[in-house]
C-alpha cells in the first residue's frame, strides 16, 4: 500500500565511514520523518520536515543530518559512523493533517 521507499535495506559498515540513507515517497506528502528504533523498542523521532528546505531536529539527539531539496526525497547522512549508531532507521511521511503515517521498510544499520 505504502509508496515510500528506503534504501539500502541492510548496511554493514566500518567506523568512520560516511553514509547516506535514502528515503523517497511518491505520494506528494509535505511531511516526512526519520525515526530511530532499537530492536523491540519504541520509536524515537530524530528529524522531521514539513516541506522543501524545512528540517527540524526531533526529540532524540542525533549526530545525523538531513536535507529536503525535493518534496519526494529526504535523505539522512552520517558523516562519521560509530558503533553507537547501530540501529534501525525508519522513514515515514504523512499528508496535510498528519492523521496517518506511511512508513518505509527501514534500514538496519550495523557499524563495526
Amino acid at each position, binding site marked *: *500500500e*505504502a509508496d515510500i521507499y528506503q534504501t539500502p535495506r541492510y548496511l554493514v559498515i566500518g567506523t568512520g565511514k560516511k553514509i547516506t540513507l535514502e528515503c523517497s515517497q511518491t505520494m506528494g506528502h509535505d*511531511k516526512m520523518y526519520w525515526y530511530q528504533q532499537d530492536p*523491540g*523498542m*519504541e*520509536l524515537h*523521532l530524530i528529524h*522531521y520536515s514539513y516541506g522543501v528546505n524545512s528540517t527540524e531536529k*526531533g*526529540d532524540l539527539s542525533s549526530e545525523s543530518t538531513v536535507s529536503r531539496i525535493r518534496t519526494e526525497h529526504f535523505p539522512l547522512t552520517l558523516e562519521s559512523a560509530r558503533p553507537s549508531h547501530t540501529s534501525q532507521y*525508519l522513514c*515515514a511521511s504523512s499528508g496535510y*493533517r*498528519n*492523521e*496517518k*503515517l506511511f*512508513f*518505509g*521498510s*527501514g534500514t538496519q544499520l550495523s557499524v563495526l
Partner: protein
Amino acid sequence: AQTVTQSQPEMSVQEAETVTLSCTYDTSESDYYLFWYKQPPSRQMILVIRQEAYKQQNATENRFSVNFQKAAKSFSLKISDSQLGDAAMYFCAYRSAIRNSNYQLIWGAGTKLIIKP
C-alpha cells in the same frame, strides 16, 4: 507533556481467540487522536486503527476494535479471531489536535503479540 504507556511488553494468544492490548496515556488536552500501529517482523509499519477523542463511538476496522475510555485515559485494542498474520509489535500513539502543535506522535514502548497455532 503527554506520555503513552503500554504495560504489556509481550502477549500471546491462541489462534482464533480474542486478545486485548492495553494502552494508557496522560494529557491535559481535550482534543487529540489515538492510534494503533502494527509492525510485523521485517515488514513495514502500518496503521491498524485510529480514534478521534471527540468521538464517543469506539473505532472498528474488521477484526480490530478499540475500547476508548476518555475519562480513564485508556485506549485498548481488541483483536478478534486472531490469525497467524497478526503476530507483530503493536504500538499505541497519541497526537495532539491543537492547531499550533507540531503534530508529532507520542509513542508507547510497544507490545509484542505472539499467535500460537
